[in-house]
């Protein structure tokens, strides 16, 4: 990747990160149901950024840097366990894209985006899976009491809840990719000939 590409990916990463953060905060309004849509709104809104990024910077490492930077910022904000999760999301995104030529392939971009966002959406599940109730209360003692951590575990280890979380996330990410494709073609794709004012 060239220097300019790294800079552009970082700046697009900022856009994605800000949208994710703001939409994550908005989901708090849903109260206890917020856990089901925590990342979903962000997935829907960030897809255009992802689509434009992949099309405009079709180079290996683009997706990985995009997610890794968000992970670094999360960890500097105190959420250190987010770093490996975001790194894995970025790596899987890169793997799903496959060849370098596929960075222009809408289908492959969509698959890559959905997989990466699902990993991101399951961060709560991974926290509880790897840290356990005790680990979660020890890692974030001022955020989780044993009861609250147990409640989080019960939410994520309930197959019905998990199915809802995954379904909502996958649907949001798929809708996001459709939106991403639409916005890319409408505003950024120079290969599409538009009707001019005089035509």
């Amino acid at each position, binding site marked *: 990747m060239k*220097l*300019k590409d790294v800079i552009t990916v*970082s700046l697009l990463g900022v856009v994605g990160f800000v949208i994710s953060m703001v939409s994550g905060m908005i989901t*708090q309004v849903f109260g206890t149901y*917020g856990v089901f849509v925590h990342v979903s709104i962000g997935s829907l809104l960030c897809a255009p*950024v992802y689509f434009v990024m992949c099309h405009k910077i079709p180079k290996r490492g683009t997706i990985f840097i995009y997610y890794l930077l968000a992970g670094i910022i999360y960890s500097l904000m*105190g959420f*250190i366990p987010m770093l490996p999760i975001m790194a894995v999301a970025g790596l899987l995104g890169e793997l799903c894209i496959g060849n370098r030529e596929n960075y222009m392939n809408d289908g492959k971009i969509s698959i890559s985006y959905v997989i990466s966002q699902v990993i991101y959406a399951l961060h709560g599940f991974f926290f509880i899976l790897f840290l356990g109730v005790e680990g979660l209360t020890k*890692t974030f003692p001022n955020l989780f009491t044993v009861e609250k951590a147990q409640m989080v575990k019960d939410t994520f280890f309930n197959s019905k809840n998990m199915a809802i979380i995954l379904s909502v996330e996958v649907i949001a990410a798929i809708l996001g990719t459709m939106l991403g494709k639409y916005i890319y073609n409408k*505003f950024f794709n120079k290969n599409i000939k538009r009707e001019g004012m005089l035509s």
Partner: protein
Amino acid sequence: MFVDNVKRKIQIKPISIGVLMVIYTSIVFFSTMLVYWLMLLFSFVLLIAVKKKKSISLFIFYIILFGLISLVSSKCTISGWIGSIYTMGLIILKLFPLWTLAVILSSFGTSAIIYSLRSLQLPISLCIGVAIFFRFIPEYRAYLSEINEGLKTRNMGLSIIRPIHSLEIYLVPMIYKAFETGEILSCALITKGIEYDCKKTSYEDLSFTWKDYGIILVGLVFLGITIWKKL
């Protein structure tokens, strides 16, 4: 070779704020209330030293949020969506010392942050990425207000009836702005010779002074107190 002997001095160096952020990150969720207040106070003192005006607005925001959280905890039943918003407010309060440091870090120039990160022998891509992320998160607020002004002049705005259009009018200019800023930044960095294969120097004096050592020492004291309290 041209050597600039008159270097601009920065009061506090980005690297000392970065080290303090790492220390804060590692203890922010473990610290006792005493350490938390000390961390917050120290962050505000540093912010006042770097950005006086910003510190006032941030302090007012903190006081309002703290007041609201105290009010909710004393007057309301913490459940449902009130509980969720209350928890989010608590997280913001808890992470406030870190965010104050992030505000300080965002006040440094991109070149100063990149040079500081490079001195830690980190890969150049990572240095550039992290520096840009920190530097440009606050900029997006300004971009949003610019977009808002532009939309006002065109008599456009958010509409529930046209959700995709509402998204387009905000998102598309932000993406374009990212590309535009990317072009300008790349030109600036290439002009400064970032791609040239030689030992890099900085126009600004980024060597450590007693202030920087003092900042790190205070951070280590907070870390020590937290570990001592936990043992």
